[in-house]
């Protein structure tokens, strides 16, 4: 880890600290999704245990898209992105810093949302609750590492905000399945979550590697 990585990381964290744009909008949006789902599905008793994992994951997924769109849109103003393209450092460091920043944002939102969520859905964890601290970061990483990559990919297209969701969600489906199944395993205690945790880990490793390898191609595409 060298100074390029830290510069990008600190810069993005500082911008967010001053404006709080991403975190506040994500938090409010994911809270809204949770409320909308509870009104639409009327979760009570065992049913709420079954759908809770899915609702939390989908709420995070929808909310994070707004932050991911902002991740690169912010760099377009004042031609910052063109300047970044001309710097003689590898794009992988920029990408990795962006992923880490957005990972921190989404994790903050999840941590803030979790108590609210547990109250609204009357949740009781049947399995080992500590495993949730492993599942959520793994799933969030899968979402963010692909999301930052595809946001960079769609940034120069028409309808870029819509396009990000259109290309991110199909690719994210297996990770969403793994995340939801693992969370349900912990919340209901019906099945063992470890198979899904391994699958999520594999997904994260594969897609982080490919994204790091191909990021320069996308970033310098002309």
């Amino acid at each position: 880890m060298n100074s390029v990585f830290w510069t990008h990381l600190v810069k993005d964290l500082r911008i967010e600290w001053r404006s709080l744009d991403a975190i506040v909008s994500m938090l409010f949006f994911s809270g809204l999704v949770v409320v909308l789902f509870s009104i639409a599905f009327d979760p009570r008793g065992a049913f709420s245990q079954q759908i809770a994992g899915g609702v939390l994951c989908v709420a995070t997924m929808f909310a994070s898209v707004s932050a991911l769109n902002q991740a690169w849109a912010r760099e377009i103003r004042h031609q910052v992105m063109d300047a970044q393209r001309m710097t003689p450092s590898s794009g992988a460091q920029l990408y990795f810093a962006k992923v880490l920043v957005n990972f921190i944002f989404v994790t903050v939102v999840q941590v803030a949302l979790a108590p609210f969520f547990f109250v609204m859905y009357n949740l009781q964890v049947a399995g080992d609750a500590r495993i949730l601290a492993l599942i959520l970061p793994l799933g969030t990483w899968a979402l963010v590492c692909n999301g930052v990559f595809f946001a960079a990919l769609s940034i120069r297209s028409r309808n870029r905000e819509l396009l990000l969701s259109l290309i991110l969600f199909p690719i994210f489906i297996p990770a969403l399945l793994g995340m939801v199944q693992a969370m349900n395993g912990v919340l209901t205690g019906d099945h063992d979550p470890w198979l899904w945790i391994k699958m999520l880990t594999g997904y994260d490793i594969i897609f982080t590697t490919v994204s790091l390898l191909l990021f320069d191609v996308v970033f310098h595409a002309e």
Partner: protein
Amino acid sequence: MKKAAFTLFPVITILLMIWGYYQAIYVAPDDALQGYVFRIIYYHVPSASVAFCFFAVSLLGSIGYLAFRRSHPNRAQIADAWALAGAEVGVVFNTVVLTTGPLWGRRAWGIWWTWDARLTTTLVLWLIYVSYLLLRRFAAGPQMQTLAAVLGIFGALDVPIVYMSNRWWRTQHPAPVFGGDEGSGMKDPTMIHAFLWNMLAWFCWGLLVLFIRYHVERRHQQYAALEAEEALASAD
């Protein structure tokens, strides 16, 4: 020679399709358990095979484009045309699979759809390649081909993961409708003949459409290059 092949191949394809239709509808017997509706397999399985092969063509095209885009621009354009043609025609065949599948499932299983490994993988594959085509539409300009090639690789990488994750999912929650292998019912040799004839016919038809789409895209690329040259010449 090339011209003769271009006229002869469509004729052979159409004859094969007529023969395949005759074999499937009139010659092959009804299935002992499923009855008449079983015949949809002669269209469903060949379409699925063609779609999967063409998505592989698209993946190879995407890799080829990324490999050649700096060193051999012309080869890269050829690879990109194959990538687009494979994805587009593959989506059409995949749509046929997703239409004929539920039609058969409704009669054989009693339900239109189930979230089983193969069905979900086919659906996700369809979603991924539709998003690929949307990207090609939205991301105008010269960088579009590079971006599309990268997405093509990501999409292909996702497919085995989708398949494995759905298999694990379904082994944990076994669904009663998840029957045996679709090919396991073929005991009658006329059924196998009808199946193989249709496989051949639909592959020929798929290849024909693929070639046409490829040539259209190549013409399109050449026309765009010509237009760019003319614009440059008039600017001087």
